[in-house]
């Protein structure tokens, strides 16, 4: 099934199995819904699949209030670029509530939102802002790359006791893959997944970057370069152990993501790697993130901005060509 269908199934089964689950957001109810919520209001009613006014701050605030009372609200922010409007509720209430009240109140909400880009919608409908939420203690940040992971991780997010930011990628919604239909299926948050094993270099990514990395790994295999593709799946909790284990083996790494490279999620991965594997790395860790530019609308320009297989392959070659001159240190 497609990613869209997998996410739909996760929502469907969560609504089915637990009265505490409800969905809240703009245009998520039938007949208007076309994304992962399609069909659900017809099945569970508009009290549980609730269309709202265009009020992102109140959507998340309302989800928080209901979550405090034991519900498991799944709030939708239609496109991630609009999440700024709800940012205050997310960072100042959802993320900090458990801590500030010593656990007396909690806000186990899930905020689903979608990363656009690649559709020609321009700079205000294409941002990947996951780095913002990684930086806020108290939030979990989840970005699936396959339908299977999408279903398993969304299920975990909904029933997780902490607030989760769940990022969908518009360009992955139509991707197909095998998905366990068992309602009991879930994937624990915080476990990276080796999407392809390899020995020469580790491509570390999440979301759409995984797809580009797999494409790059295919091409690299034809050049007899064996690339491991590690899908982080969640940025918080971050599976540091898996990252280190893989790069310890390969001694080379390239971090790939659609988010802007500068001050992006990849910077943290690099910082961890250089600290944990300083003497083990054969070359600087490379990053392939989006260019530092507002996204241009024309596809021909936009495709220059995002990571793609060619850029990843070039980065891999840079790590392989690296000639260490370590002796020169302490000069």
């Amino acid at each position, binding site marked *: 099934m497609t990613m869209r269908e997998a996410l739909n199934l996760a929502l469907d089964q969560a609504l089915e199995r637990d009265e505490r689950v409800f969905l809240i957001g*703009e*245009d998520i109810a039938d*007949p*208007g*819904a076309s994304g992962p919520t399609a069909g659900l209001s017809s099945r569970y009613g508009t009290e549980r699949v609730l*269309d*709202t*006014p*265009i*009020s992102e*701050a*109140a959507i998340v605030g309302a989800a928080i209030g209901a979550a405090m009372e034991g519900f498991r609200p799944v709030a939708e922010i239609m496109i991630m*670029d*609009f999440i700024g*409007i709800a940012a205050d509720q997310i960072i100042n209430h959802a993320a900090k509530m458990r801590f500030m009240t010593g656990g007396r109140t909690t806000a186990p909400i899930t905020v689903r939102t979608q990363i656009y880009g690649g*559709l*020609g*919608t*321009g*700079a*205000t*409908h294409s941002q990947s802002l996951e780095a913002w939420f990684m930086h806020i203690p108290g939030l979990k940040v989840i970005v699936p790359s396959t339908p299977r992971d999408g279903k398993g991780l969304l299920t975990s997010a909904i029933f997780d006791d902490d607030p989760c930011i769940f990022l969908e990628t518009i360009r992955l919604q139509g991707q197909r893959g095998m998905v366990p239909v068992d309602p009991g299926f879930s994937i624990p948050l915080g476990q990276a997944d080796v999407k392809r094993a390899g020995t020469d270099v580790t491509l570390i990514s999440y979301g759409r970057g995984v797809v580009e990395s797999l494409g790059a790994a295919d091409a690299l295999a034809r050049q007899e370069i064996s690339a491991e593709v590690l899908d982080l799946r969640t940025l918080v909790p971050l599976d540091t152990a898996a990252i280190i284990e893989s790069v310890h083996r390969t001694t080379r790494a390239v971090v790939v993501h659609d988010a802007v490279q*500068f001050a992006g999620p990849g910077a943290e991965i690099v910082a961890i790697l250089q600290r944990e594997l300083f003497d083990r790395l054969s070359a600087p860790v490379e990053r392939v993130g989006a*260019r*530092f*530019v*507002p996204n*241009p*609308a*024309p*596809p*021909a*320009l936009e495709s*220059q*901005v995002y990571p793609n297989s060619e850029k990843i392959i070039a980065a891999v070659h840079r790590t392989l060509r690296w000639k260490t001159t370590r002796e020169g240190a302490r000069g």
Partner: protein
Amino acid sequence: MTTEQAAGPALDVRRRLYELMTLMKAADDRLSKGIASGELQCVYWPSRGQEAIAAAVGAVLRLDDQLVTTYRGLHDLIGKGVPLVEIYGEMLGRQVGSGRGKGGTMHIAHPDSGLMMSTGIVGAGPPVAVGLAMAARRKGLDRVTVASFGDGATNTGSFHEAANMAALWDLPLVLVCQNNQYAEMTPTGHTMKIAQVADRAAGYGMPGVRVDGNDPLAVVAALEEAVERARAGAGPTLLECVTFRFRGHYFGDPMKYIPTEQMDAAIAADPLPRFRSRLLDDGVCGARELDEIETAAVSAVDEALAAVLAAPAAALDELDRDVYADPRNCPA
């Protein structure tokens, strides 16, 4: 009763309204046809059906007055006088576009025409319009700013903050709500309990007026009053213009959520044929003259599109430009 005696705008204004409306409709029709056939590739949020409002704004505002609109802005852009080549050019990613093709459909600006901003963020236009109005006041200009937005936008916090500020400071601003009865796929009545958007005005201390947004003369009359008020320093007005979107939210919208009766009623109230009949009935123009206006509109659109399609695509080196005033400020 001759039209000269009838209340309302002068004959040339009525003619102008029709010219603008036909141009807006022709521009929408051509774009829609092109996208549907695969000839043209772009995203588009169609304005078909809302022409009367935009034409009235265009006819009432001076060139130096300013307008802030949204992604659903084709009609507004045309009304304010943005050259069609720059509009189509931007939508289709060409160098002749208002932003040399890199901003896209949702982000068209043309300060020379007073079209200051189009935004893709619902509700985010009014605060910027507040700032434009403040600027006019501080410069001592008698310019008026119009912020144009949808019914759904009035549910945003951003609208509220801006409306409150505008009223508080008696700013030369008119808040024009194009109530097309839907926000994406959600009917207006599903997102607010009040019967009319104009009722929101009371919470700010400004007049709220509701008019038939499919009747350009009604919009002109209400807008003239609001603009005069604003220009005189007496503060903003919330003007709700009730209308309909014929093509749904985005181009390609299957519109399954729109009841047939509602669509039928909307078609019956289509501002274009209605205003045409009115002009004929009132003796403002003859049928031949109106036909000529319509033909001229189609030609103007065809010509603009031809020019755009002949123009080069946005340059790749646009990525190096306009991130900062000085490109060296970008991190390596």
